[in-house]
């Protein structure tokens, strides 16, 4: 990426090419389309920035990315993607291309990891994550366990295991307890894992263990002050305990952090309402109502 950027910068600072940049760009595009990426890339690199025509500039940029990916020139691909996204931030074509290109680059990096360090815990971890996404829960669990066998103190793995257990369809009756153990273990290894504190808090909330929920969710919010859901869960727990005044502060924070979350507004409205702040409550109820009452249109589905 840096290589291409520096080349681009150099191109910007150097004298304009005597050749017609539009013609050069078009030539590069044609070369790229006919599969001659090795020849196309240098031409595109030089001409893309100098082209005045927006449409041609876009085409040249897209062709650069395609060619860079095809010829496995990752630096060039990344630099071109960055440039394209800066020049055409809302272009659907650019966004579409970016999605595929980043995905491709990610796959190649994963293949590289598998080739160079197949037995590393990072390889197991990556494999586990992929299996988890595919819904292959048992296989993913084995991979995470393999990571822990190799390196029992790696942060994040117990957290992922706990989360996996809770995500599994048709879990056993004791799944929450098993998951809880994983989160507790995670916090032993990494006491700053706000996510683990949060899920422990939510599990406690589900079991109406309000004191425990408040403890965990308070810690989660303290560890990550931008964790809106932690503040929301804390406020909801306090409401369940009928500690309406105490619930106001975390809920106000939740609303500030996540202004688009209807649950935050609803719970804050409830806390205001139960503490006699009727006007504030009505304001929050109104925001919540606006968010939740979107009327269907007449158009058929």
């Amino acid at each position, binding site marked *: 990426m840096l290589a291409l950027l520096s080349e681009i910068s150099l191109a910007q600072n150097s004298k304009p090419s005597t050749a017609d940049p539009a013609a050069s760009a078009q030539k590069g595009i044609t070369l790229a389309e006919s599969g001659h990426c090795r020849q196309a890339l240098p031409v595109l690199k030089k001409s893309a920035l100098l082209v005045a025509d927006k449409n041609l500039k876009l085409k040249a940029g897209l062709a650069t990315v395609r060619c860079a990916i095809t010829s496995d020139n990752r630096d060039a691909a990344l630099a071109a993607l960055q440039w394209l996204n800066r020049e055409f931030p809302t272009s659907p074509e650019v966004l579409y291309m970016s999605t595929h290109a980043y995905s491709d680059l990610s796959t190649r990096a994963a293949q590289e990891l598998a080739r160079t360090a197949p037995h590393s815990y990072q390889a197991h971890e990556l494999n586990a994550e992929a299996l988890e996404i595919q819904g292959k829960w048992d296989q993913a669990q084995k991979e995470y366990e393999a990571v822990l066998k190799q390196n029992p103190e790696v942060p994040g793995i117990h957290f992922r295991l706990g989360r996996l257990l809770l995500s599994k369809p048709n879990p056993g009756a004791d799944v929450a307890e098993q998951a809880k153990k994983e989160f507790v273990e995670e916090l032993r290894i990494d006491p700053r894992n706000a996510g683990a504190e949060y899920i422990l808090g939510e599990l406690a909330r589900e079991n109406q263990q309000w004191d425990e929920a408040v403890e965990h969710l308070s810690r989660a919010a303290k560890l990550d002050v931008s964790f809106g859901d932690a503040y929301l869960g804390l406020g909801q727990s306090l409401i369940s305990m009928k500690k309406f005044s105490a619930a106001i502060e975390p809920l106000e924070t939740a609303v500030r952090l996540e202004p688009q979350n209807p649950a*935050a507004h609803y719970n804050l409205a409830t806390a205001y309402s139960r503490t006699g702040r009727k006007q504030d409550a009505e304001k929050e109820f109104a925001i919540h109502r606006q968010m939740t*009452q979107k009327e269907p249109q007449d158009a058929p*589905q």
Partner: protein
Amino acid sequence: MNGCFTRRHFLCGLVGTAGALGLHQIAGALPAFAYPFEEVPPTVSGITWKHTAGKSLEKYLPETTGPGCAFLDYDKDGWMDIYLVNSGKCDFYSPNPPLRNGLYRNNRNGTFSDVTGKAGVAAGGYGQGVAVGDYDGDGFPDLYVTQYGHNILYHNNGDGTFTDVTEKAGLAAPGWSSSAVWFDYDNDGRLDLFVCQFVEFSKEKSKDCRSGEDAKRGYCIPHLYKPTASWLFHNNGDGTFTDVGKQVGIAGPRGKAWGAVAADFNNDGRMDLFVANDTVRNFLFMNRGNRFDEIGEQAGVAYGADGRPRSGMGVDAADFNQDGWVDLFVANIDHEMYSLYQNNHDETFDDVALQHGIGQATRLMSGWGLKFFDYDNDGNLDLFLANGNPDDLIESLHPGVSYREPALLFHNTGTRLENISATSGPFFSKPLSARGMAIGDFDNDGASDVLISVNDDNPVLLRNTIGAQNHWLGITLVGRKSNPDGVGARITYQSGDLIRTLTKVGGGSYLSSHDPRVLLGLSNRQRIDWVEIRWPKPSGLVQRVTNLPIDRYITIVEGEQKWK
């Protein structure tokens, strides 16, 4: 609270030992009345009527939402008869031969006879539910049938026949009506009528909803249809009604109403109204005398805890914890859990469904007909829930969720509601597309029986086999100054160390109407010391009655000291 009927505990113990002894051996040894409810098959009851939904490839939404049912004593012979609502002709359905509702007369021997034709209550439109009330105070219960299209008011002529007086009464209420509730909102001693409206719907407005990998057409989520205002009709006392919805604030907020129940939630002597809406917030209309204030949000009954509207369907109201304030129950759809709203005595409620195990038990279920009643006559209000998912494709979309679902029974221990479905017999594992549900003692043994109307199937009649093994007193209330059915009356009674208060609410359940008599459970106590009736306004009379019998039905007339 003590003196609980002990058979259930005996059964629980028995089930506990089943593993060791072998279930089949125990089952063989069990007496026939071992479980609290037993099904009365159509071959025994004579109720051969069947609901036809008219299910089409187009999947019109009303096909999956009915029907309702009622227990009523239409001929005033002291025995509960049965009314069943069917689908019928409308803009998207034209059954041939035509369908009809069913009125079954109680033969007083556990069987019923179809008298629909003679009574003249076949209806014929696309029926949904029924509400029973004596709107003209002539002593005979009248029928209000809700339909998709327009509704019907059948006036009971007192001679076994009815007359369709809808037009004169002004109660057609066009649109898609669901539940209806008779109650006296203005305390003038006459029953007014609230009619739930669901959504703006017609054949043309029906939407094409598809889901799953093969894009099968299914029933749409109601979110896709526009909400609409419900109706409140004031009883003018001359056989006509006036739509006062806008005037008193009921028709302001637009909802998608399925279930409604009228009760005095703030003990101010005026009947309030709770309305369960589907995919929009629930409404709690507090009666302020000359208008209703909708306070569902502030009261904490409008949404789930996450602030999202749920799919409210069946509802009921009762003071289940005997603190003197009426609580609320709302059944929702799968993945939403049902709600048990405990009254905080200040026009706010807390959802305590999780604390009572209701949340966990109903996490994947969808509930319609439901009722608080004391099935074992131990003096505590238990809870019966009839369930079934409205989407017949649900099993392919959501693993773990069933289209047909079993009913649930919660026993009130005096301190909490306990899910006893698993130990209450085979009926509670039988999957049904249950919709309406009515409570009534059809065999007059003092034990509340259950009638469940099933979508596109035969209704289910359940006989209560254990309630009569405790002592009880059944009361018919007859209002004179207050409304004729005594809706809104509070009945307090003492039997030794047992003091209980029951409220006669308006409506409750889903599309259905219940036995109007009030059953007082005494457990094993041999006498009842007194019964005190606080009649609804305009009289507001507090009437204490003593020297009462037990294990029979009596009538208490407002202002008359001696029971009949």
